């Protein structure tokens, strides 16, 4: 990792650990702050920050501030000067992209996934998910958890529409960065951390996927990711719309049809893969709003059940759900989607989930939150990378 290069969890540029500058963390009273031109240029941030200390020597672990003499171990990304997580260089950094068309439910999915991982699935699978920095804590608390779980005015509410990352507001452009520790036992049965990974989630606005600029942060997030969760709104499928009562159906969004082909093109162009070679990045195609689809799914189908991830990823359940959804899609005239996935992606699986498990009222308030299968695609990605064993396997 350290020798072969790292990826910044904020700007998604690659760099070598030995090339990272450091930031003096001494308070202004002891060491005067200064404008960080690069940070300002990339993130549009105003105001002075602690001094940037250039790396000295081969693969330095710290740097001494020439002004105050304080030793700093706070590494910065050489490209964007954001503070890197403390685990950088020690553990692999995984970027999992959650993408989807406008109103596909990405923000809700992300909010509920993190909560599920922390509160339910995490303890079951002995996975510990911790925010990597204060910005992630604050952003998740204020933008996701607070409105959805605690509620404004004492009532739970659906999340606001996600602002575009093309806007200067860096809170939108800054990903959520988590450290995921997977616990296990050693030969003698003692508890130990068997793997630690840094996870980066970028809450994309659907409209940002239209940008063809490969250097746009949101696009780098996608083509440099280690796993993609593509959220599709089944209520945009014509055959589904025809079989559901027309009331409360969302307006038709034509971009849903194109989202997969746009993503594929982006990855092929960004990674410069030769044509015809399948993309190795695992792709989880997840249909959101499963609760709305219930009337269209046979009662005996595995989709209606909950997966049992206790002790490992429930691979059998996933395979069953994958087959069922493929069959449903074939029935809904979505053969082109199946063809695209088969043709371009070496590893893929279909999932169905519901982040909220219920519909909000007219004002956007939620009576409760009953998530269904939100963790399945994520755990599958962990499984694909060997971070999580299948249930029952040794």
């Amino acid at each position, binding site marked *: 990792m350290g020798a072969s290069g790292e990826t910044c969890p904020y700007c998604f540029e690659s760099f070598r650990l030995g090339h990272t500058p450091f930031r003096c963390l001494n308070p202004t009273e002891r060491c005067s702050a200064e404008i960080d031109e690069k940070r300002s240029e990339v993130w549009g941030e105003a105001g002075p920050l602690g001094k940037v200390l250039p790396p000295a020597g081969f693969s330095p672990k710290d740097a001494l501030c020439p002004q105050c003499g304080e030793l700093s171990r706070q590494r910065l990304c050489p490209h964007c000067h954001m503070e890197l997580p403390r685990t950088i260089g020690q553990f692999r950094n995984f970027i999992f992209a959650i993408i989807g068309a406008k109103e596909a439910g990405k923000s809700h999915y992300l909010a509920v996934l993190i909560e599920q991982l922390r509160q339910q699935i995490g303890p079951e699978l002995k996975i510990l998910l911790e925010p990597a920095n204060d910005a992630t804590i604050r952003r998740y608390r204020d933008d996701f958890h607070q409105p959805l779980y605690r509620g404004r005015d004492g009532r739970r509410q659906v999340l606001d529409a996600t602002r575009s990352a093309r806007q200067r507001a860096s809170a939108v452009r800054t990903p959520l960065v988590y450290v995921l520790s997977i616990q296990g036992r050693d030969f003698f049965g003692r508890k130990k951390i068997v793997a630690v990974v840094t996870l980066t989630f970028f809450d994309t606005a659907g409209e940002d996927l239209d940008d063809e600029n490969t250097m746009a942060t949101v696009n780098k997030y996608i083509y440099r990711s280690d796993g993609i969760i593509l959220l599709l709104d089944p209520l945009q499928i014509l055959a589904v719309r025809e079989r559901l009562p027309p009331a409360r159906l969302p307006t038709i969004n034509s*971009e849903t049809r194109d989202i997969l082909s746009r993503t594929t093109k982006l990855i092929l162009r960004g990674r410069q893969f030769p044509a015809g070679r399948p993309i190795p990045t695992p792709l989880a195609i997840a249909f959101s709003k499963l609760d709305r689809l219930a009337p269209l799914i046979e009662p005996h189908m595995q989709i209606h059940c909950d997966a049992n991830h206790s002790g490992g990823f429930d691979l059998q359940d996933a395979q069953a759900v994958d087959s069922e959804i493929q069959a449903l899609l074939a029935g809904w005239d979505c053969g082109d989607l199946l063809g695209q996935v088969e043709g371009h992606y070496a590893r893929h699986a279909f999932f169905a989930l519901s982040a909220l498990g219920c519909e909000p009222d007219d004002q956007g308030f939620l009576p409760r939150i009953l998530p269904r299968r939100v963790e399945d695609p994520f755990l599958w990605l962990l499984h694909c990378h060997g971070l999580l064993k299948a249930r029952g396997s040794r």
Partner: protein
Amino acid sequence: MNALQARYTSCRSGLTGRPGFQMRSCSSGIAAGDLAAIEARNSYRPPLDAPAAPSAGQLARDFPVALRSYRLPSGALAISRTVYSGRDYSGRWGNFFAHTLVLEPEGEGLPPGWPIDYLDWNGWVGCLPPEEDGEEPPEPLPAVDLELADFGASFGWPALSAFLGREPGREKLLAAMLESLLRGLAERRPVVVKAGPADLPLWIGCLQKLLPRATAWEIAISTYEDDPRQSVALTGTSGQTYYLFDESASRQRFFGFDLVGGGRGEGGEAGRPAATLASWLRHQPASLERYFGWLDGLPALGLEELGPSLDLYRLLHGERDALELDTTGLLALAARRPLADPREVLDAFFALDGLPAIATRDSDKVVQSLLALAAAAGSRRIWREPLASPFFLATAQLAGGKEKMMALVGRDGHDLCDLLGLLGRDGSAADRALGRALGAAIETWPEAPAVREVFEEAGAWEILFGEWLGRLETCADAGERGAAFADYAGGVLARLPRFREAALPWISWTLLARASPQEFFPALRGWLAGGGLQGFPPDLFRQCVDRATEELPLGPPGAELDEVALLLSELARERQLHFSPDRARLRLALRPGSSTHLGKLQLDELFGALEGLGEEESGEFLRRFLAGALRAVDKEVHEKLMAALDRPAIQPVVPDAYAAALRELDDAALFRLARFWIQAKAAGGLARRIGEVAEDFLIDWLAGHPAELEEAKARFPRLRDSGAGWPRWLKRIEKRRRNPLFRVRGWANGVFGKISARRQ
């Protein structure tokens, strides 16, 4: 002035053709880069404590409005108003509507009013009505004529004055905010004001309206942001946002003024300009208006010029207290910028109650500014004015003030002489340095000939001489110096006879002082022979003679240098000068034939002239002198010589010099000296050491010369006073002859002698 429009919101269809946040519509003519910059700035997130599902009334009342003004990449100014609009076409909350005006500057003109005035503009659009949010592409927006715009009175002078008066302490707080803003702009640290949604624009308005319009348009503002990372130079925030006003957070990133929670970051006490402006806004808005009216139409002031411009305005409008004004700054500004009639500025300045105290470091700046103003006013002899003269004299008394002032004045010779007369020329080192600096500058002036004549008339030799020094210092070698002198003599000295008469020796000396010995002594011989040197001023005469006596070489022989030595000796005798060492005397003693008069020489005086000479040079002199003297010396003179050489200053070098001199003598002279030394009585001190050296050499010589030895054996035993000396010499000679090394040396000397002779 026309303004193009752009509208941004979350809609079904806009410029992208897809749903979501995007530019809904815009006027044609906005550059793509500008449009992207507008989109990047168009962000809005409500305060975290704002109502979750607000009613229309709450939307209008409880959500802060973000008025932003900034400059676009193309250089055009942009002003936008962003409001929270609640739900978008899909029914989701979080939508906002940003309406931006791109102001197309016409020539150098500014948009009407201050940016904050635009908050009251009745042309803003705050939402996209659902019936207009269709799938069809929007029509381009028309341009807006701002000259016809109605800005309302919410941010007029009376309203802002009343706002400040609503609570005690607001005026002082505003002054502190302005001070922080000025400091923050220099340090690139934003000023953030937190207040309620109603008060916030008024605070930003008060602060912005303390700045001239041109300056205000250059400073980016936003009346509402929720994230400190998005702060601009002057930012407002309201409600629960990510802005923290605790000490550490604000110190790190911004100057914070939390008017809700009472927290206030660093920023320091307000300076005089900030306090004055805030006071005017509170108590005399008309003064502020007049001040800005005075500035209107002038080029935009830099921030550092704000204080001086205020002081200049106050000076010109009746402020008479010199202690209250930043004299240096206001004069510099008045001289640099065409803000006022220079004559008016000068009159007002010299009409102050008492002359302002000028810091030493500012003296040249102040004088420079005054001179520039005087020049612009057509009054070149400003120091002649009764009010100005004391000021100049006071400035001149500062350390280095006189030189700085002289270096700054104009190029008119009369002006310079007037000022010299005013300042006084007392021949001090400072005056000479001043003359040198000025003189060196004169050379490049086209009006130099006229200026020089004025200087000559005034007897300002220092300045004219300084010019010559200035030229001389640019010459790299003797050739260039000669050419410079020829040019100067023809171009300057020939036209200034009085100066020539007075300064020629000095000018000549400056040339000689830089000349090599080969150039120096021929010139000196001419002066000595012609009597010119004797006519030099005493200190210049002494400088010439000192250099001559320091550098006159003792050898080799040469008629020209011998003549210089002779003339110098005569001059020294005539003027009773004493040199130590006296090189002229020593050189004369080495002339061929001088040794024949050895008995007559006053040996003590001669060897006394060696004092001060280095050991090496003393030894060399003695070797050459003794080699001549010992050739013809008799026993009596030899004894006198030995006695005279016994001087502490030269004792260490005499034995070796004597031995070296012996090596240059012929056999007859050596035979004679051997006889002296055999007869020499036992002595102590220097004579004993010389005797040992001489005896050793002579024994060696006799052992190697059989014929001379036989003659010595025949003659020396019969010598009177030889005593036991000769038998002892004989024993040593025999021992030396038997020594194998001596034989080898003799054989080698013979062989090499023959080879050497053949070569010759």
